[in-house]
């Protein structure tokens, strides 16, 4: 199995790279490839089972887009034909229409989905996230009756993504359904983007470590690997179950208001 991390030298914030280290610990034979900015992504020319990209800086977004912009059509073809992508944090914003800062456009995105990332140059947004992932959502999932999987994690970001023509553009593509905590923006009913096997989400954690049931599903169904047990699965499940209980408790606050942060009332 081959897993490619795009631009790990810049897309490495908030522990996100540990998503792939966890996959490696769970699937020891997996080969992990890190592709730096100067190199052509390997998945374009050879079989790769999964492409991963994690959170980056605002400048990192621009640098990554400078490379990916010329590959836009090939990336769209791969998404169409079902290549696995897992995109976390603000790396998701690269695949929307454009990125704006304080109302000004700062970058054109790849236009894979009709989303506009609007961020502040000052305020950060921080929240917890509790939601569900529906394995049966995809038409060809082969498991229409599968139970939804609870998802937990964090959001810590400068902006949110809005549908170009309202959230009706984004909600049908949602990867997760929020139970507590916001979706793609304050008003959206969905969180993240799921187009075929392209999975993207603002939820960080790292997502795969914090959510062993989802990870097990992902490895089995997306990567086609018959995994019995994740690395240190018991410890991961214990932490996961505590977190689900904690986040489900209405007494647990969802937002962090320390410092200069965006306030939602």
């Amino acid at each position, binding site marked *: 199995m081959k897993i490619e991390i795009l631009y790990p030298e810049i897309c490495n914030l908030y522990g996100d790279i*540990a998503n792939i280290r966890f996959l490696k610990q769970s699937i020891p034979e997996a080969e992990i490839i890190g592709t730096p900015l100067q190199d052509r992504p390997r998945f374009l020319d050879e079989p790769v089972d999964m492409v991963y990209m994690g959170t980056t800086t*605002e*400048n*990192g977004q621009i640098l990554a887009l400078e490379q990916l912009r010329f590959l836009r059509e090939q990336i769209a073809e791969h998404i169409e034909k079902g290549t696995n992508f897992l995109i976390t944090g603000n790396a998701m914003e690269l695949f929307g229409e454009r990125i704006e800062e304080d109302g000004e456009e700062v970058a054109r995105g790849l236009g894979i989905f009709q989303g506009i990332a609007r961020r502040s140059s000052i305020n*950060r947004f921080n929240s*917890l996230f509790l939601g569900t992932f529906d394995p049966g959502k995809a038409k060809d999932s082969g498991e229409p009756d599968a139970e939804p999987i609870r998802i937990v994690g*964090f959001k810590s970001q400068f902006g949110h993504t809005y549908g170009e023509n309202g959230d009706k553009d984004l909600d049908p593509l949602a990867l997760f359904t929020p139970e507590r905590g916001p979706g793609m923006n304050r008003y959206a009913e969905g969180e993240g983007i799921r187009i075929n096997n392209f999975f993207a989400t603002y939820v960080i954690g790292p997502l795969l470590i914090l959510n062993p049931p989802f990870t097990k599903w992902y490895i089995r169904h997306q990567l086609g690997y018959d995994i019995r047990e994740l690395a240190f699965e018991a410890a991961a499940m214990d*932490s996961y179950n505590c977190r689900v209980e904690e986040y489900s408790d209405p007494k647990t606050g969802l937002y962090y208001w*320390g410092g200069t*942060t965006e306030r939602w009332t």
Partner: protein
Amino acid sequence: MKRLKFYMALWCAKLSIIALKMTGHRGTDFPGRIAVKICPDFLRQAGVPGRVLGVTGTNGKTTVCNLLISMLKADGKKVLDNNQGSNTITGLTTAFIRDMGAGGHCRSDIAVLEIDERSSRVVFPLMEPDFLLINNLTRDSIMRNGHPEYISRVLTRAMPAKTKLILNGDDLIASNVAPGNPRAYYGIESLPDDVQACINLVNDLQICPKCHSLLQYTNRRYHHIGRAFCPECGFRSPKLDYTGADVNNEDMTFEVSHGDWKHRFRILNDSVFNIYNVLAAISYLSELGYTPEQIDGLLSKAEIVKSRYLVDEIGGYRVIRQMSKDRNALGSSRAFDYVSHQPGDKELIMMMNNLSDAAVWSENTCWLYDCDFEFLNRDNIKNIVVTGPRAKDYYLRLKFAGVDDDRISFVHDEIDSPNALRLYEGEDIYVLYGTDSIDLAEKVAGKAREKIEEKISGNAGRRAG
């Protein structure tokens, strides 16, 4: 009208200080909050001391400030400082109010201010430091600070044009702040333990700021701190104005050179992190016009507050309280690295939980996966007691780092955690605590001491029997 507001703010804040004293509250920034509420530009209107010295950065700014304050006081200067309060706008305002008389004039000759790096955007428009030292910009709380590149941008945008910067030239993120400002760089030429490849999980400057090719490090200390160059475009770490070299851990000294002088100074302890702090203070005083001999004399009189590393010895055991900043991957990585390299067997109590977060929401634990828990996977660390609200996350993270189950103990409440200590003969017990759990760590250390005393008296009883 403006002056009226200023005096109203000053006097109300002064009254609040009296009220706080009467009710036994100290070290709070409440007076500053009142003053800023009444007069938002209080600091602009305040008469500042002759010189305003700022210190900012991610880690070590309190230590550098304390050193500077101590050395300047040893030189007979009357110093205004905020070391008893916060480093945000209200904390700084409180410090000024405490220093001012009823007429609104500062009594001190010089101000030494620890300035929260993110607060610079609200502080600098009101008060322009004459000098500002940036000791490093690394990952901190992701909720507040995001990432160091963002903080660099905040500082650059806010920087007053006249402020002279004193920058860690071994930190390419800090040293690139406000490139138009006058500046001096300090750094360390080479150290025996320097490496080229990064052994840390966090490495925030891997690409050349000019051409974006991969940087190469000739002398790396940790993370992105060290000397680097770009093999593609020739970009390199800045030439140092103050160069530290030849660290001698035996007599605890190192050499600093600047221009035509070269002098040996004492270091406070042998961690690289603290050598940078001392070098920062030496460079700062030199920029203020002190000679190396004067600095040496003042440094020998400097008193260092040891609130972040406290040692108690009991019957061959040592109980050590080691600050390991919560929600700060780099700060905790430095602490883990230091602890893991200390000789002898040890047990750790891991309680860096952010208790304020636990009270109102649930701590964002992403930072655990940026932090080098792998350093704790060593044979001489016999037992790690994980405890507090995030104990299960610590346990998972330690498993992820490869630490065996038989070297991890789980205790729900911090205060009970010493019960899980195994107390191997002559070992060190480290209590790793965060900024939020200083008092609790003291209690836990106290209980650990009791456990040791029980064991010692039990052994003595058995021998007598």
